[in-house]
């Protein structure tokens, strides 16, 4: 029992070549804009037809170029939740939902009431989408998609059209809905926090190709590739060479660092997350960095500081993030990074 996707689609200057198999655990697809995330969803929904490949849900074939099968979107049982919700502006909430329901009209009324109640939209059935708040519109869109009883639920940047303060509570709400949903949920986003909150498994897309696939928590901890490190929000990347099994030399920073894991032979880069640097005044710690401060940006709860390692011998600057404990910032003597926080990365030569 799984959703199997294996598709290719060629455009001039861009090729989408995506292949994955997933179980009923919400999957996030993270990628930069133009990486082919939305296109992947459109192929699954049947809005775009791939050049070749196969899409299968629990053994039911939706698309197979060899067998010449290409089901219409109407019969795929794939729900597609769009960024702008795509509610029909000329219909009331009730009518919007009714369009997704099958069966005789007299049964629809009761089912619409149920859905409105389930999505906390009681009493809003007669309103038009333009008369609802952004959060309500999203709940109507989700109710409408689920009313069509899909096997697969696709979410295309579901929170990007919403105000920041609404996002948090709607994300929590969506997390619960996704957990209740008995099917395959795939969410596309460029927001790593969103993916971390909502999707236990994660696929990283880079230039139309799958760069990495795994459990979200693992991929954030050990990105493994340069693309994955960048997509999961690692601000500091440096070209690196292997010195010995537990030592690397970071060329861009002019630093030699100890690592916790064995350094792979095909290592191309290392990454260190901005918050992994710790301040210290002792001069005998491991992975000690002497530095100058270039500039600093203050946010309500943290300092983002751009530092120059090794007293400025032409090295690239590094971002250091420090949670605020006091309003005053004092420069420590050194920074240090724990060996397990040095991310060992491969595949940097293909992308940079």
């Amino acid at each position, binding site marked *: 029992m799984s959703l199997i996707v294996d598709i290719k689609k060629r455009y001039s200057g861009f090729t989408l070549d995506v292949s994955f198999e997933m179980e009923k655990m919400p999957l996030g697809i993270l990628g930069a804009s133009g990486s082919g995330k939305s296109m992947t969803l459109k192929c699954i*929904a049947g809005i775009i037809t791939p050049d070749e490949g196969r899409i299968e849900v629990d053994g039911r074939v939706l698309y197979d170029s060899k067998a010449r099968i290409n089901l219409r979107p109407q019969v795929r049982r794939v729900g597609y939740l769009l960024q702008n919700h795509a509610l029909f502006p000329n219909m009331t909430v009730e009518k919007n939902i009714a369009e997704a329901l099958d069966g005789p009209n007299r049964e629809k009324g009761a089912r619409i009431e149920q859905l409105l109640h389930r999505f906390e939209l009681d009493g809003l059935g007669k309103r038009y989408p333009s008369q609802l708040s952004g959060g309500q519109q999203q709940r109507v869109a989700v109710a409408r998609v689920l009313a069509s009883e899909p096997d697969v639920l696709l979410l295309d940047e579901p929170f990007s059209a919403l105000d920041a303060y609404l996002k948090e509570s709607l994300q929590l709400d969506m997390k619960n809905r996704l957990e209740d949903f008995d099917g395959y949920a795939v969410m596309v986003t460029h927001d790593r926090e969103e993916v971390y909150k909502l999707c236990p498994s994660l696929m990283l897309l880079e230039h139309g190709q799958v760069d990495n696939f795994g459990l979200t928590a693992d991929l954030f901890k050990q990105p493994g590739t340069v693309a994955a490190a960048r997509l999961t929000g690692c601000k500091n990347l440096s070209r690196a060479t292997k010195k010995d099994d537990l030592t690397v030399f970071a060329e861009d920073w002019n630093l030699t660092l100890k690592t916790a894991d064995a350094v792979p032979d095909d290592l191309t880069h290392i990454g260190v997350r901005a918050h992994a640097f710790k301040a210290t005044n002792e001069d005998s710690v491991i992975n000690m960095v002497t530095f100058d401060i270039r500039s600093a940006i203050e946010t309500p709860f943290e300092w983002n500081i751009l530092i120059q390692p090794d007293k400025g011998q032409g090295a690239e600057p590094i971002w250091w993030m420090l949670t605020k404990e006091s309003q005053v910032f004092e420069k420590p003597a050194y920074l240090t990074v724990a060996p397990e926080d040095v991310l060992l990365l491969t595949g940097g030569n293909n992308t940079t």
Partner: protein
Amino acid sequence: MDISAILISLRTAVLSIVITFFLGVLAAWGVVSMRRERVRAVVDGILTLPMVLPPTVAGFFLLYIFGVNRPVGKMLIEWFGIRVVFNWTATVIAAVVISFPLMYRSARGAFEQVDPDLIYAARTIGMSEWRIFWRVIMPMALPGVASGGILAFGRGLGEFGATAMIAGNIAGQTRTLPLAVYSAVAGGDMEGAYAYVAILVGISFIIVVSMNVLTAKERRGVRPKNRK
């Protein structure tokens, strides 16, 4: 003033707009749904051509097709006993052909303005293409389609060149208002011309006002009918 010109003109304009409306909407939807870019460009060019051609040239082609000694014209006479040229039918055909591109292009523009996401969403929740057209696309495109209809009506009412070529200028049969204006002036009857002109200007003014009302509506977007 000859009242028959007014009646002939109105009958022609009303019947031709009904035909033009359906043909135009159908053609627009057909072209919008076409997948192949090149085929679409060619078809679009052919459908738009009557708008760019001088009406007398369009009329010349019509005469070429429907003339009594031409295959199509001959067939219509022999099989159905219908003689198209220099007949009231010809005024309708001329009005339809000349006003069609306006209807077609407005409808196409209106259909292309409909947010494709709405159509994708409609498909994935299981609505049939037919239902999507009538329940989603048409209501969204209605202001644009309607203004195209009004424009096409105005153009059909004012049709002169092609009508003169294929229908002639037979008083009481094919003499529409624009032809009546021409005939009155040619015959030195300025009083008669004033009356015809006044009627045409009046109708045109109503058309411009209704266009503006519709465009304003289009700009505001589709409004809910019963606000709370």
